[in-house]
């Protein structure tokens, strides 16, 4: 433990993994594993709670993880997730971080129009909207990100049909994409950040080969406990090798 006083009982970090039984494509589980290990290696105790339909998110959760899934699975979880807005707002009011990937990112927005034209309401916690586009956006991505004062390069894999637009200046892009299509293939942005809500299209999974991204999320999620103090550095030699390799892969 990095100079932090004894906890008030209970783990230092509670991660709620939403719909682990349904939203888990493209190795999204790797993001969870990465967050857990990187907190544990620094001496924080971590509890992971899987939360599926009709189950409550722990009231003391510090980090909520929402993965992606097929249109069919997204349609199944959509209504359940949207009904959680009060629950999630309560959490962010207590400084919890919400992190959505691909489908989870889209559902954090105002609404989502599927390929068949059906419109689904989102959580409205990110000022973004997603509509259909021509063809899927598929390929490897390198993105220059800024998150909570940290800047880093993300490497990942994008695969989505939806086109996402940031609607107001309340939501800022997570990254710019010199190599890749990002949110919509048009404005060079990728992902969105609005207070403690973070969304990205990047699979890969993105966090294992971009440890700085994982650490920025962890530092924010652990802030109630650490007062936002910098996290102890880790030996990231293997992660850096994987990152360096990912930079060389063709799209």
């Amino acid at each position, binding site marked *: 433990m990095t100079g932090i006083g004894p906890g008030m009982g209970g783990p230092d970090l509670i*991660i709620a993994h939403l719909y682990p039984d*349904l939203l888990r494509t*493209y*190795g999204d*589980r790797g993001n969870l594993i990465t967050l857990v290990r990187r907190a544990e290696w620094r001496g924080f105790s971590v509890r992971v709670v899987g939360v599926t339909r009709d189950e409550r998110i722990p009231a003391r959760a510090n980090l909520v993880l929402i993965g992606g899934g097929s249109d069919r*699975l997204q349609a199944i979880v959509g209504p359940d997730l949207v009904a959680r807005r009060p629950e999630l707002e309560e959490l962010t009011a207590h400084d919890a971080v919400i992190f959505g990937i691909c489908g989870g990112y889209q559902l954090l927005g105002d609404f989502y129009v599927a390929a068949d034209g059906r419109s689904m309401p989102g959580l409205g916690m990110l000022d973004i909207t997603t509509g259909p586009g021509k063809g899927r956006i598929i390929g490897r991505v390198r993105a220059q990100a800024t998150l909570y004062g940290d800047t880093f390069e993300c490497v990942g894999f994008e695969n989505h049909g939806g086109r996402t637009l940031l609607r107001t200046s309340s939501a800022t892009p997570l990254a710019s994409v010199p190599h890749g299509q990002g949110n919509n293939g048009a404005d060079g942005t990728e992902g969105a950040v609005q207070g403690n809500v973070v969304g990205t299209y990047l699979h890969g999974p993105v966090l294992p080969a971009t440890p700085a991204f994982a650490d920025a999320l962890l530092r924010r999620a652990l802030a109630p406990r650490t007062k936002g103090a910098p996290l102890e550095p880790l030996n990231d030699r293997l992660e850096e090798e994987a990152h360096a390799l*990912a930079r060389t892969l063709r799209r």
Partner: protein
Amino acid sequence: MTTSNGSETVFQSVAVDNVSMPAAHSPPPHEGFNHEDGTGAGVATPGGATARARLRDAAAAAAALAAGRLSRTMRAGGGSSLPGVLVESLSPGFIARRAARLADGVVAVSGTNGKTTTASMIRVILRQEGLSTVGNESGANLKRGIATALVDARSNATVGVFEVDEAALVSLMPALRPRLVVLTNMFRDQLDRFGEVERVAELLRGACERLPDDGYVIANVDDPLLWHTVEGFRRIGFGVRRPSVSPTSGAGSPGIDPGAEPTPCPRCGAPLNYEERTIGHLGVVRCTRCSMRSATPDYEARVLIRDGLRSIVLDVAGVPLTLSTGGLHNAYNAAAAIAAAGVLGISPTRSVTALESFRPRFGRAEELQANGRPVWLALMKNPAAAAALIPEIAEDPRVGAVVVSVNDLVADGRDISWIWDVDFERLATAGVPLIPSGTRAPDVAVRLKYAGADPLPASRAPADAIRAATDACPPGKQAVVMATYTAMLDIRRAFLGDRAVRLLDVRS
């Protein structure tokens, strides 16, 4: 098979002797399996090809064969399917006409995993019954691979057993007109190719709709979405039951059921409860909301004894079967083959006798000698295959080191994110040295680190990784290599017999 000569396969393709005298064999029309040429060539008539088309087929086959030989001699890439490419362009409709000449019909095997092994097992059973088979034994399972197999077919072949790519099956149904379609399972394979498992289900359903009226679908009842997909067709189910279920979740691994696919009820979308889980999402289920529940298999393989990757003892319809290739996935393959044979009128007792002599091939848990040590090779083509392998490897006390070799070429699937869905945590608890390898060795190293292991330095070249593994392996123990498809090809290339081993010895 257990040989150090990696280029050999169990069933050598047979040189063709009939292509110059095509009219000599004109099998009698077989009821229910004659058909019009579905490819639009317009020369075939119900009951068989016209003499003109047959002559053209023969000439095309001869030309294609010659080109194939030339290509192999010149070591040109892609030689193995070249005859198929040529023959279909020289003589459109070739597959349909040649398949129609197979008097005992065609069996098509499709699904994500186990196609090659299942098709191979079916051929072994049919051959024991004295039938002459033709099939794409190389595993080339697109149209050209099947055309190549028909070019190479023995003149007296009466039955075709083809493995067919899931996406290619629909379009090949009119030409092949299979009496049986055997569907092994639907795992997430290469998402960058198919998109979603639901899409695969649609493709397979479309294929089943093209079955002849007296055709059957043989499908895995333990795969809830697959069994649901074939509802309404004449279907025969197979499944695997384990008497004692050991907990399979990885110690210390966050999250839930590693390796399992998300499986909502295919009928109503509610979560499924598993009474028993075998591999990934395969198992015996009951819906938490509606009346949907797993069917009782018509052909059930009950696991009696598991012995890692080496062997597995099953009870099939009261008959014990010792398979010389271990793992629950092979229990499924055997159950599928026995079910298919059963529908063709061959008793499980007869099938079991044939399968006792079955040997694995091409990286499907075979043994090589490297640096004077036995090395097991196991193909890890997707999360499901890896999920099936890891418990076998982690529980096997004979295993002394493991190479995890992941390539990201098109044939492997360019997206390797699935390594995070696989329970490497379980492998890490085995406590044996782990060596990352393949074109994505650095990603494997990170995965193993986060699984709680302390991997040895990554060796991208498989030969180096295997050397590291045999060096790290305690005496009396075996090294195991888990490799994706092209990584397996690299390994076999590096170990072509003694010469390659010697080459390896002088390298460092």
